[in-house]
């Protein structure tokens, strides 16, 4: 299968702070980058609300998508080409899937998906298979090419080696986002020797394996993941911003359903509220649009919506305490609920338990009952050994407790309860418990 135009007459390069250069030689890739659906990713931050905790984290899904493409390109062109098990006719399919794997992400995806019951992966499929510029470009490779790209991203493509390059325990997606997120947040613990890992990757029939000599580089990668999850992705302040964002969406939906008359009508939200969003409507959403509404809704007559929007825009976030929802704590939560109501603070919006399972989550655990394919090391005698059986470090962090719950609330509202001193005292006693 050949793309009209084949290779570009001159290689294009993007300057990139993580990989130094991103190289594009294939006209197909160049044309995909130029589509409006791919350009839209410039307007969606990779880490959602994390910029409110780590101010450098303003990088976009566009940067990350190019980064994943570049890693796959290096694996294929520099390491896999000519090796047994690697079918080089799959090269362009892999590159397209790498570039487009996050295409369906929307603004602040995680909160939007939770409130409006969406799945960005469905939209990735819809953009690739629907009436879009991306689809038109892909179809120049053949009528079934978009379907193949969509299958690789959905992990339902028949060649599992190709799927594992894009999505496995040690794939190009994770390698790029760890390095990129570490770079932009400014933290030092996300770094690992990616060049070394790429050099020791080997294709096998069903998956990518790692030469035993590269085990220590993989250990470093696993530790980076572990650190980044607890220190950056699960950061309690970021979670506070997510909680407020989620509550804004809930409030706006509730007001709409109750027939509230918005000063700034939520035109872009109507189909979201009905949970019937078509592709065209979805593609009109980006962070600029959403933040415009939040800016305007600060002036709404509804005091809850305006307050939550002010908190988000001005970063006046909720405080938190550790909260393990045992039965004893649940009784305290019910008591707090009643006290909040008594104090005139609506607990539906201002008293929120946030659990680790509410977060986008993904760190290393070996595949118990085989549900997740573990990382295999290729031993000098040709045998495959699961990583945690060889690595003391990985074994030490496998299967450890990884759950966490926090209770979020507006400290300033509680401090301001000067006319309800007894209620304020009780609330503080429970929270400071």
């Amino acid at each position, binding site marked *: 299968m050949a793309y009209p135009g084949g290779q570009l007459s001159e290689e294009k390069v993007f300057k990139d702070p993580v990989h130094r250069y991103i190289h594009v030689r294939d006209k197909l890739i160049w044309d995909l980058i130029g589509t409006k659906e791919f350009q839209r990713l410039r307007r969606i931050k990779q880490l959602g609300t994390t910029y409110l905790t780590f101010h450098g984290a303003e990088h976009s899904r566009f940067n990350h998508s190019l980064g994943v493409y570049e890693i796959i390109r290096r694996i294929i062109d520099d390491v896999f080409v000519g090796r047994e098990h690697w079918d080089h006719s799959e090269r362009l399919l892999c590159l397209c899937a790498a570039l487009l794997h996050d295409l369906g992400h929307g603004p602040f995806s995680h909160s939007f998906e939770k409130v409006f019951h969406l799945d960005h992966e469905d939209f990735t499929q819809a953009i690739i298979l629907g009436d879009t510029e991306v689809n038109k470009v892909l179809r120049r490779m053949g009528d079934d090419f978009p379907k193949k790209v969509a299958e690789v991203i959905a992990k339902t493509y028949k060649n599992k080696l190709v799927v594992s390059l894009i999505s496995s325990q040690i794939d190009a997606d994770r390698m790029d986002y760890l390095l990129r997120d570490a770079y932009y947040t400014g933290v030092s613990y996300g770094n690992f020797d990616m060049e070394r890992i790429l050099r020791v990757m080997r294709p096998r029939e069903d998956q990518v394996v790692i030469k035993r000599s590269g085990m220590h580089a993989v250990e470093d990668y696993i530790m980076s993941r572990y650190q980044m999850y607890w220190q950056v992705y699960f950061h309690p302040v970021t979670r506070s911003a997510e909680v407020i964002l989620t509550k804004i969406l809930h409030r706006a939906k509730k007001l709409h359903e109750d027939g509230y008359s918005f000063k700034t009508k939520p035109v872009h939200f109507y189909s979201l509220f009905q949970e019937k969003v078509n592709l065209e409507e979805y593609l009109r959403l980006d962070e600029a649009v959403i933040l415009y509404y939040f800016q305007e809704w600060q002036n709404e007559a509804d005091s809850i919506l305006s307050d939550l929007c002010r908190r988000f825009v001005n970063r006046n976030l909720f405080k938190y305490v550790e909260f393990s*929802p045992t039965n004893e704590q649940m009784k305290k939560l019910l008591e707090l609920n009643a006290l909040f109501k008594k104090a005139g603070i609506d607990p539906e919006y201002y008293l929120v338990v946030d*659990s680790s399972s509410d977060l986008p989550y993904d760190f290393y655990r070996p595949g*118990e009952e085989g549900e997740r394919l573990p990382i295999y090391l290729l031993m000098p005698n040709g045998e495959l050994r699961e990583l945690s059986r060889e690595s003391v470090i990985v074994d030490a962090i496998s299967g450890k407790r990884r759950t966490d719950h926090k209770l979020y609330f507006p400290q300033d509202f509680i401090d301001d309860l000067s006319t309800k001193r007894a209620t304020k005292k009780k609330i503080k006693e429970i929270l400071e418990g």
Partner: protein
Amino acid sequence: MLIEHAKIMKALAMAGEIVGRKKLQKMIYIAKKMNFPFYEKFGFHFYGPYSEELTLRIEELCNLGFLHEMKEKKGGYFQYRYTLTEAGEEFLSHYDIDMPHLEECMQDMNEKNSRFLELVSTILYFENLSKEEVKEKIVSLKSKQRYTEEEIEQAYAYIEQLRSKAKKHIHM
């Protein structure tokens, strides 16, 4: 608050005991596809639809002492048994979750083995494809399971049977 946790616990309480993580995953996925209000996100993994979110939620419930997880060695791998604890029942008493038809469905699914539920959930995952395309998917993605034509037909029939059990509206 914690309503999604409570719904999972309710489903487990209805089923009684569920043996195997894979079985638990497939039962919740199938229930979701029967339009019961479960909102965990599922993607396609090696044994069919799988949700990391659900795995983590179960782990949280075990850590809180609401679910009992019993690990037992079985051949070359570990198997897990899940039941609701007394503390779990007390936690659930804080919620008024009414999903009557879910009980019939959970109990029915619990009588099936995980191999069959893996097939049922895989068919449901590809429900937008034609029957012939689904069969091709099963052959290419589930080659090691060697599902027979008869099993595939049984799975399709089972989906219809389950749908008729679940078809009444769900009130929350």
